[in-house]
């Protein structure tokens, strides 16, 4: 009896710990959402009346809208490039000999383990070197940010696609080529359909990492006048951030939450269907 009450006490304690930490995680986000419908300059001030004024202001704030657009463009294009580059790389690495494979794997880990500021500076010096020393007509720009984001996210695509590749029949590609299909055709018609799931996960990961990036973007947009959401918020610290940032945050929170919930429902449904199929058999 005593044991039972103490274990249920423990259960309550566990719930309390979980809920306290969850509250700490979500309270800031909830306050921003609540105050996105108030016009007070600061969160926590007098609420006033419920209004969509900040949302209206957001859609008139050209700088913030451009920053959001840049974030999305850089994220989508670099994630697409990273998915292509990362998938072809995974296939190539998969067929390498052990020693070459180890060397390439180590090289692909460099940007993952390196401190981001050093990676960012490396890109910066490369641009300076290309522009000033060997005088190629290039400069810091949206395109340069897309390239840098592609480079830092590609290793994560490789990490996502490679494990799936290991589960495939190792002779698939060679069989296809022996039967007369060219290498590109073999890759596209034989390998890609089987890697599609992993490629989508890789794309999603690359996209989120790109959206979340600050350091590489900050250092590589000196003088380029390209702002993303991250650099916009950062440069706003010195001035004062406009309150409509709260409206943008609310929209992003809701989009992220919806996407994750839908994704999980679809995933659970698929798992259930698969279980059903096995049961029927």
């Amino acid at each position: 009896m005593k044991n039972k009450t103490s274990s249920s006490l423990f259960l309550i304690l566990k719930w309390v710990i979980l809920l306290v930490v969850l509250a700490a995680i979500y309270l800031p986000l909830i306050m921003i959402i609540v105050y996105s419908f108030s016009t007070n300059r600061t969160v926590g001030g007098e609420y006033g009346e419920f209004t969509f004024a900040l949302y209206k202001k957001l859609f008139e704030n050209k700088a913030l809208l451009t920053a959001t657009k840049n974030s999305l463009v850089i994220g989508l294009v670099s994630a697409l490039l990273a998915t292509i580059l990362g998938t072809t790389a995974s296939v190539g690495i998969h067929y390498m000999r052990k020693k070459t494979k180890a060397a390439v794997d180590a090289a692909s880990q460099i940007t993952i383990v390196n401190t981001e500021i050093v990676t960012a500076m490396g890109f910066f010096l490369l641009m300076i070197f290309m522009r000033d020393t060997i005088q190629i007509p290039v400069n810091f720009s949206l395109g340069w940010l897309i390239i840098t984001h592609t480079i830092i996210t590609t290793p994560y695509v490789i990490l996502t696609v490679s494990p799936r590749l290991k589960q495939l029949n190792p002779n698939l590609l060679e069989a296809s080529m022996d039967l007369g299909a060219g290498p590109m055709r073999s890759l596209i018609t034989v390998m890609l359909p089987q890697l599609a799931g992993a490629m989508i996960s890789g794309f999603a990961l690359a996209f989120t990492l790109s959206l979340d990036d600050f350091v590489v973007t900050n250092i590589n947009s000196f003088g380029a006048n390209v702002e993303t959401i991250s650099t916009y918020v950062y440069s706003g610290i010195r001035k004062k951030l406009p309150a409509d940032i709260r409206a943008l945050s609310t929209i992003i929170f809701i989009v992220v939450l919806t996407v994750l919930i839908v994704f999980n429902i679809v995933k659970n449904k698929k798992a259930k269907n698969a279980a059903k199929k096995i049961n029927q058999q």
Partner: protein
Amino acid sequence: MKKKTAKVFRPTAFASPYLIATIIFVIIPLVLVLVYSFRGANGEFTFENFRKVFTDKETLRQLGQTLEIAAVSTAICLLIAYPIAYILASAPFKKMAILALLFIIPMWINFMLRIFALQSLLSMLGVKKGFGAAVIGIVYDFFPYMLLPIYTVLSNMDKSYVEASRDLGANSVVTFFKVTLPLSIPGVISGISMMFMPIFSSYAITKMMGDMNTTVIGAKIANLFEYQSIGNYGYGSALSFVLLIVVLLFMFLGTILTKRSPKAAKPVKGGTL
């Protein structure tokens, strides 16, 4: 003819675009960091940049503070994340997948917006900007990255070890310290490594949450590049090069620790019990 080209083509060639990109955009930049760090203001070879890194009091103070911030926030984050991961991986909670998801959802929201939200809340609560607020910001930002690897290790752990330990008479406290904790060390190391070094670069957080005296070394490097005249990047490069060595050292340490821990667990696996 067509057949011949197909035979000559090796599948490894698919990796070549990536390899070329890696050489141009990853290897060459690192070489440039090294070259610039030995370059003086007029392009001459010099050790001056490195001498400055190790003698400049301001730089040393910032390096020290970075280590302090990194150590304190990593420790706090670990102390919060471990119990949460442990609870989430234990009996009634393990089945509630949505609960674990709730803890890591913030990972998908832009971190600057999250820090902005946290800053708004803290200033509403009257918390002053400074060292403490910066640590809170870093813990808040990195929490999911610390939680996830520990949770993954704990929830994939073979529960029969715990049962065996209990059957053999150890109470739950002893079982935790002798069985669960050692088996979860790889997750803990992975969590620490996802947090400790990245803190060196998280100057955005210290700038938003800290005061004038609270900063990480990343801020210094960013400043050195933003406000330096072209052709004078030597000091910043030398500082980056030192950070690169620190990263390598920590990686080396991490590999040794991870390699050791499964060995410690192996006798259990081998059936000495």
